[in-house]
């Protein structure tokens, strides 16, 4: 009796240890199994799962298993970091483009450079900014997943009440400021527009197109020094400061919960700078909205885009090959049109607009045509350096201090530039 108790207890311990340490075995024969963490929610998750099922039915030699990865796209980075450390990584994961330089440093990140040269994939059919975002120092680490860009959404009713015509495609930042001031009504709790001051990327990414339009840049071409504190940066931040402090037409959003979108949906903001992903929500809220490209500087309406990637990680040669085959299928024009129609995403390939179903997609999402056409205005991406997140946080602080009236634009940006130069001077990473 006693011995059997001991045996059982020891056996349990051994089993537990074995269970914890069980590594991935190399597959011998049969269909290649690959795992994808898609990081999508709701309609997007359903759509991608539907496509995966279709792929598995038509490709007997590859079996794709898909889950969200247990997190949303925002939380994928810590999750994938942990998975890579413990060798429990999936074959494919959905990762933001701004993480690519850091992800590519991991030796388990696959190299698809040769694979995408296959003419059947039509790599050049993807937009240039997407190809750039998934290529790190010449190495292709995956496939483009989603592309977006920044536009201005307006509340048609609030504009009409203030006696304003909706903005045209050739409007300027001065028009934006004037219209925001006119629509602001402090008593009714209505603001012209909003700006994030929570110290994260949301605070920063709207400033970059203003900077680029005026001929400025984030870093110097060799990426060794800050460049955002030049004239273009000072003017951009100065305009926002005038709006926030002189006109009081900017709602300063200190929350990380995207309160801006909720305020826009409930008619408390006249303008909202955002991307295509908000359209389904705006429709659900029954808002009478319109879409225009960003205001311009001297006729330049350059915008910012944030391409997201399907990044491939290595287990063995067969699985990498299978992953690439699957992604080539998933990102082909026909599958993408299905995904776009389900989710309201933008076309990631030029050829999608030639498909017959494309017109139905445009009808389903009013305003998407403007955002889709605005892809042509997305010319640059944020600097592909591992230090970008740090640089972004310095500038976010400068924006918060300036808009709250704790510093002027010049002092704040000069301080951020000094911190940036110091961070960029650290060798490695």
């Amino acid at each position, binding site marked *: 009796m006693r011995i059997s108790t*001991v045996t059982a207890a*020891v056996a349990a311990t051994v089993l537990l240890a074995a269970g914890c340490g069980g590594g991935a075995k190399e597959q011998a024969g049969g269909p290649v199994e690959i795992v994808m963490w898609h990081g999508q929610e709701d309609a997007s998750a359903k759509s991608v799962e539907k496509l995966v099922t279709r792929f598995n039915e038509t490709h007997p030699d590859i079996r794709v298993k898909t889950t969200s990865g247990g997190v949303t796209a925002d939380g994928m980075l*810590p999750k994938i970091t942990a998975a890579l450390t413990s060798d429990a990584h999936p074959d494919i994961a959905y990762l933001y483009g701004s993480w690519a330089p850091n992800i590519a440093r991991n030796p388990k990140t696959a190299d698809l450079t040769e694979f995408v040269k296959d003419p059947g994939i039509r790599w050049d059919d993807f937009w240039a900014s997407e190809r750039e975002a998934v290529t790190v120092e010449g190495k292709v680490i995956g496939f483009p997943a989603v592309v977006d860009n920044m536009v201005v959404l307006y509340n048609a009713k609030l504009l009409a009440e203030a006696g304003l015509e909706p903005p045209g495609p050739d409007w300027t930042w001065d028009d934006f400021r004037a219209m925001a001031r006119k629509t602001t009504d402090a008593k009714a709790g209505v603001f012209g527009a909003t700006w994030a001051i929570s110290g994260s990327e949301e605070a920063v990414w709207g400033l970059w197109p203003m900077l680029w339009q005026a001929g400025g840049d984030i870093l110097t071409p060799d990426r060794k020094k800050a460049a955002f504190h030049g004239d273009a940066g000072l003017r951009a931040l100065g305009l926002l400061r005038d709006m926030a402090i002189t006109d009081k037409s900017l709602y300063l959003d200190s929350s990380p919960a995207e309160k801006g979108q909720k305020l826009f949906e409930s008619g408390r903001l006249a303008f909202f700078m955002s991307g295509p992903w908000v359209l389904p929500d705006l429709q659900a809220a029954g808002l009478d909205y319109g879409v225009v490209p960003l205001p311009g500087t001297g006729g330049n309406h350059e915008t910012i885009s944030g391409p997201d990637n399907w990044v491939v990680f290595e287990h063995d040669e067969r699985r990498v090959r299978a992953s690439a085959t699957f992604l080539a299928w998933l990102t082909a024009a026909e599958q993408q049109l299905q995904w776009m129609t389900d989710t309201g995403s933008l076309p990631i390939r030029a050829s999608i607009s030639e498909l017959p179903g494309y017109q139905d997609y445009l009808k389903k999402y009013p305003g998407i045509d403007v955002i889709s056409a605005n892809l042509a205005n997305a010319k640059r991406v944020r600097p592909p350096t591992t230090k970008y997140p740090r640089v972004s*946080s310095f500038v976010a602080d400068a924006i918060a201090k300036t808009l709250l009236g704790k510093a002027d634009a010049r002092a704040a940006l000069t301080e951020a530039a000094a911190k940036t130069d110091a961070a960029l001077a650290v060798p490695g990473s």
Partner: protein
Amino acid sequence: MTSTAPALGRATGRAQPRDRRKLADNLTGWGFAGPATLIILGFSLIPMVWALALSFTDSDLMSSGRNVGLDNYRALVADPVFHQALRNTGLLLFCYLPASLAAGLLVAVLLNRRVRGIGFYRTCFLVPYIASATSAGLLMGYIFDRDFGLLNGMLVKVGLPAQGLLSSPSQAMLVLTAIFFWTRFGFTVVIYLAALQEINKEILEAAAIDGAGRWAVFRHVIVPSVRHMTVFLAIWGVIDVLQFFDLVMTTTKGGPANATVTIVYYIWQLAFTYFTAGYGAAVAYTLFAGTLLLVVTGLLVARRRGAMR
């Protein structure tokens, strides 16, 4: 070794059954303790050792990283954001801990009575503690919003000037302290309530017979009687404050302009936003050392004053 060898030799003779039984007992013991030991080793000790090793490298968790010796710790000394995080966390500790202990005991005394509906009142105080930090954070974000918040709405209605609250670098940390207080208060009250119910009624009655007023009973009977719980709550509070993260994540993300960055939030940023896990580990170990120092000092002081048995 030499002394046990002959014993083992003899054991092959008569003493064998007893030794085997001892071995079986030992194995049974390890059979029960083994799984838990493995879990503690796997999930606590090994990660701790690994993090210590990490703090001497420039790892980004993506590539292996180089050994940089004590450079991370040196960098920490000059890091203005780390200093800000220390100040913010220190402010929280300074404002929260004394207030929490004093108010907790007072409310516990009030709740330690036989009044109609006392269960309901006690529940009211505990609910914020049970609510998740995410929901509490989002809810408070709406109350303490500068432009659309409930609080400023009320202030303006009674003719007071609206405050900057979560949008103000000088007020945001204080607002966060208030929210932290609100979410943790139920725990303090419950612990004190349990301690109060342990106090022997006869002592209270004896004090009353001796002519002690309410204040004297509180000061000279109740406060000394619950002091071991005060020590526990103080140490728990120090640890809780130093680990403060969740509400920062859901209300301000450390903003505006780093006004609400706490030490643990900064560690998270360093490891998962800035890809400087090695440096993050160094901050984590500094926090560990600081916490240990505070707790051990606290315990020694408490022991010297006889607040602990």
